């Protein structure tokens, strides 16, 4: 199977995720962009694992997935806590502290 284009796809996915985190203002969308970044990482690991005939990448993927799930759980909890106080999940509204 041809896998040489996969890291490139992953790089594009990662960039979309990273740009999304920086430009989007809704906390939920930012969370989704972070998930996109982590999935790009998984894709990179999987393709090179295949290319290099090594297991390390596969094992890394399992840990990344686990961590992503734990992070999403905590992150959504935090967003809900913020939403209850302010009725908004917009990061621009979260501005009590500056400088």
């Amino acid at each position, binding site marked *: 199977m041809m896998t040489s284009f996969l*890291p490139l796809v*992953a790089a594009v996915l*990662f960039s979309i*995720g*990273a740009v999304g*985190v920086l430009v989007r203002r809704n*906390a939920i969308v*930012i*969370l989704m962009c*972070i998930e996109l*970044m*982590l999935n*790009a*990482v998984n894709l*990179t*690991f999987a393709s*090179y694992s295949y290319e*290099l005939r*090594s297991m*390390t*990448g596969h*094992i*890394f993927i399992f*840990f*990344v997935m686990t*961590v992503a799930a*734990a*992070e999403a759980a*905590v*992150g959504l*909890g*935090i*967003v809900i*806590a*913020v939403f209850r*106080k*302010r009725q908004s999940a917009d*990061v621009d509204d*979260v*501005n*009590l*502290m500056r*400088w």
Partner: protein
Amino acid sequence: MSDLAQGLYFLRPELLLSFYGFFLLLLSTLPVFRRWVGGLAALGCLLTLGVVLSFPYQQGMNVFQASDLFFFGNLMILDGMALFFKGAFLLAAILSILISLRYLDTEGVQSGEYYSLICFAVVGMMIMASGTDLLSIFVGLELMAICFYILVGYLRGNRKSNEAAMKYFLLGAFSTGVFVYGASLIYSAKGTTNLYQLAARFEQGDPHSPLLILGMILLTVSLGFKVAAVPFHMWAPDAYEGAPTAVTAFLSTASKAAAFVAFVRIYAVGFLGMRDQWLPLLAVLSVASMTLGNTSALLQDNMKRMLAYSSIAHAGYVLIGIIVMSRPEVDTMQTGMLSLMLYLMIYTFINLGAFSMVVMLRRENLAGDRVVDFSGLHQRSPMAAFAMLVFMLSLAGIPATAGFIGKYYLFAAAMKAHFAWLAVVMVLNSVVSAFYYLRVVWHMYQKPPVDSVRYAVSPGLVAAVGICLAFNLLVGIFPETLIELTRRSILMLGRAG
């Protein structure tokens, strides 16, 4: 012994503390025990500290063979540096728990989950301190970070705490993504994520591919976030100000030290072969952190925010230790390591002491986290004012305090490694920092009190402040014991077999 059996044997502190954390969680469901959970958590950390300290005695101080130190298929290592930092994390956890006991009552969030989260965060840090593979460092880092996201937002009804948690979480999760992407690029270039194997590949003279350089830069960005180095520091002042003060104390000391252990493992072991590439990066981070941290701290009126900027500046100082480790000579490298370990240990005790005083000012309806809240402290409580005086002088690095010893060793290491210009920047910055530390002292001794509400003094707080004060004065005047201990830890350091 098989690798698994030896691994479990070496992993005793982490295993003990994780089980203890679950035990506390279980215990906190029974109302009868709720009052005891905090004390039990401190006891658990103390027990774990005992297990950590028992390793050198069981093994004999210097008989470690490099190959015996690794466990779990080279994923982790138990060397002197790991033991040293595990001790530091546990001490920081104990002190933070001591100051939390009454503070959580004041905030109205006393619960067992808080203490078990602290235990789990310490487990994460301990895994990081032992990690010799990007995988194990990543897992430890995330265990620590996820616990801290929850702890920072622990005051659910408090808008500032919510906001701090949200900012810390979003930037923390982003930096996690950057870290693993960097790891995947390094894996793609070198076919391994093990730091010692990476070092070996460099010795065989592999060419530096652009992917590898990019991976290294991404890891630098991510670790820069974790230690709050400029320009990746934006989360720190907000997270420090909004978090419960006892959590801030823990976050600014233990989590920073843990991130620096990862820094040392990754840069001084794994990436040693590409030191010419990372040296300028870290030098820029260090100078920017020192300068911007100190100048921004001058402008702050909020004590927690001021200490946050001061901790950014201190991260800049500690980075000098890693820069020194880029020198090829073995003894220069050891000097860098010694200065870094000393500084982080000392900084832990100073900063925990300073934040304990902020906790003392949090009473009834007063937030007590502004600099002016320290006004008249000398008049109302001379002992407390003296303790705060020592902490402030120590942070500024005035002789006869522990902070001076730390700064002196970093300065000497930088000079020895021919980074005189970095040493000069550091000294100039220390002069600037003296202004804002001494402003607090001026408020305490020269201004009249601004309120008459009683200070929130509790036995736990007094014990924590007493320990930090004693440490600062003793190490400041008789530093030999601590230096000897640190030196021995470095001699136990495992080298690539």
